[in-house]
C-alpha cells in the first residue's frame, strides 16, 4: 500500500500540491487530472526530486529521509513522460545500469536480467543499441527496468505517450502483469482515460494541485466534479 499523507509542495507563490492524502491499496492505481493538475509533481515528490512536506510510505516503510538514488535502491522504480534510457547503451546495459546499484550479484543478477527482459518480450532486442529502438521498444525497455530488482513501488508517467492504439493495448496488458511479476504497488499517470479505466482499480483525480476525487475508478470517472474538471463544464449545483 502506498500512502501519501498531507503532501504539500510549494513553488514560490504557487501551491503545486495542496494537502494530498491518498492510500493506494490496489495493485495498480491511477492518477489523472488536466494539465498542470500536479500529477507529475506528485510523482516527483515520491521520487524525492523536490522538497515536499508530509509523509510518503509503503506498507509502513517511510521513505522521506531517503535521497533520490537511495529511494531507487530501496525499491522505487519509475518511468518518465519522455523515457530516459541511454541511447549509447544496449538494452541489456540499460538494465545493468540499474541492477549495478542494487547490490544483486552473481547468478542472481544474471537470472534477474534475463527474467525482466523475457517478461517484457524483448529478448530479441537485448543486444541492440537503444538509439536504434522505436518508441514502443523504448517503452518496453523502460518497463523492463521498472520490474527489475524486486521493486516495492512502480510509477509510470504516461507510459503510453506517443504510442499507437494497438501498442497502447499491448503495453496495458504488460502493465496489468506487473502485480503478478512483482510485489510492487503500481501508480500510473495518463491522459488516456480509457487506459486508466482498463488497468487501474483505484484512481486519484487532481485539479489545480488539490484532490477532487479518490476511489474505485469507475465511480470516480462517473463523479460530476471529475467530469467538470475534465470537460470544463460548469459544475451542476
Amino acid at each position, binding site marked *: 500500500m502506498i500512502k501519501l499523507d498531507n503532501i504539500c509542495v510549494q513553488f514560490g507563490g504557487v501551491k503545486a500540491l495542496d494537502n494530498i492524502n491518498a492510500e493506494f491499496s490496489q495493485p495498480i492505481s491511477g492518477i489523472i487530472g488536466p494539465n498542470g493538475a500536479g500529477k507529475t509533481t506528485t510523482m516527483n515528490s515520491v521520487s524525492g526530486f523536490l522538497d515536499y512536506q508530509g509523509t510518503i510510505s509503503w506498507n509502513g516503510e517511510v521513505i522521506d529521509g531517503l535521497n533520490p538514488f537511495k529511494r*531507487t535502491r530501496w525499491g522505487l522504480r519509475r518511468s518518465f513522460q519522455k523515457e530516459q534510457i541511454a541511447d549509447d547503451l544496449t538494452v541489456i*546495459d540499460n538494465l545493468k545500469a540499474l541492477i*549495478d*546499484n542494487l547490490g544483486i550479484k552473481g547468478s542472481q543478477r544474471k537470472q534477474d536480467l534475463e527474467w525482466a527482459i523475457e517478461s517484457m518480450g524483448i529478448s530479441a532486442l537485448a543486444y541492440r543499441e537503444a538509439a536504434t529502438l522505436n518508441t514502443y521498444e523504448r517503452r518496453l525497455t523502460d518497463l523492463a527496468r521498472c520490474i527489475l530488482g524486486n521493486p516495492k513501488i512502480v510509477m509510470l508517467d504516461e507510459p503510453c505517450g506517443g504510442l499507437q492504439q494497438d501498442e497502447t493495448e499491448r503495453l496495458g496488458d504488460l502493465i496489468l502483469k506487473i502485480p503478478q511479476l512483482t510485489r510492487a504497488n503500481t501508480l500510473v499517470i495518463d491522459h488516456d482515460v480509457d487506459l486508466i479505466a482498463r488497468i487501474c482499480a483505484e484512481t486519484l483525480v487532481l485539479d489545480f494541485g488539490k484532490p477532487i476525487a479518490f476511489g474505485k475508478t469507475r465511480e470516480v470517472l462517473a463523479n460530476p466534479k471529475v467530469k467538470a474538471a475534465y470537460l470544463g463544464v460548469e459544475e451542476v449545483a
Partner: protein
Amino acid sequence: MKMTVSARVGLILAALAFVFLPMVLGGQWIKILISTGCFIIAASGVAFMYSRLGMVSLGQVALMGVGGWVMLRMNHAFHLPFEVNLAVAGAVTLMFGWLLAMPALRMRGLYLALITLMAAGGLEVIFSTFRFPNGGEGFWGVMPSVAAPFQRPLLATEDSDYLRYIIFWIVAAFLIIEMHMRTAPGRAWAMIRRSEAAAYSSGVNVVYYKAWAFGLAGFLAGISGGLLAGGLGLLDPATFRASESIMLFALMVVGGSRGWLGVIIAGILYRVVPALFNDWTIDADLALVIFGAALLHAIITAPNGLSGQLLDLIAKLSKRT
C-alpha cells in the same frame, strides 16, 4: 570480453608503431612524438569526460603540469624507480582532480567548464611563479640555469625506447578507459549523461560517479605530465598555460571524442602539425588559424569529429566494393 573491430585495428596499429616508429624516425621527430604521445594520454581523459558524461573540462593540460611537477620533485628528491615516481604523480594529480571536482560537482555545462578553466588559470600563475623543480634546494627545488639529470625508466633510457614506453602507456590508458566503459562506471556515466533524473532512477550516486570521472581524468593527466617530464628532463611553465588546456579540448572536438582515433588525431594536430610547419619554415602560429577553421568545420558539419568522418568514409567505401 569481446573485442571490437576498432579495438583490434587499434591494437595492431599500436603494435606496428611500437616496433617500427622508433626505427624509421630521426632524433628530432622521436622527441616530437614522445611529447605527442603524452598529450594523447591527456586528451583521452578529456575525451571520455566529454563523450561519456557530457562534461567539458578545460583544465587538463594544467593538471598535466601538476603531474609533471610531482614527477620532477620526486625525481630530484629521492632515488626511487621511475615507475614509483610516475605512480605518485598519477595519484597526486588524481586527488587534484577530485579537489577540482568538489565545487564543480553541483554544476553543469558552461559553469563546470568555467570552474575548470579558472583552476587552470590559477595553476598557470603558480607554475610561472615557482617554476618546475630542476634539482635545486628546498621544496620548490629550482636552481638557476643548469638542471640536474633526470632518471628515466631502466628499460627506456634512450629516446627510441622511451617512445616505445610512451606507446605502451597510450595503449594502457585506452584500455583503462575501455574497461570503465564496459563495467558499472561506464553505465552509470551513460545514465548521468542521459539526465540526472535518469541516473537517480537507476540508483546511481551521481556525485560519486562524477567524482570518479574527474579522478580518472586527473590520473591520466598526471601520468601524461609525468611521462612528459621523463621525455624532456625538465619542464617549462609555458607548456601548461590555461590556453593550452582550451586548445587541447578544442582539438579533441576536432578529432572526435568517441574513440581512440579521434584522440590520436587530436594529439597529432596539437604537437605534430606545428612541428611540421617549423620544419617547412612556415610560421607555426599559422597552425592556430587552421585549428580555428577545423573547429568550425567540426562543429558545423562533423559532430563526431574528423575521426567520425574518416570512419564513415571507410564504411561507405567498403560497402561499395
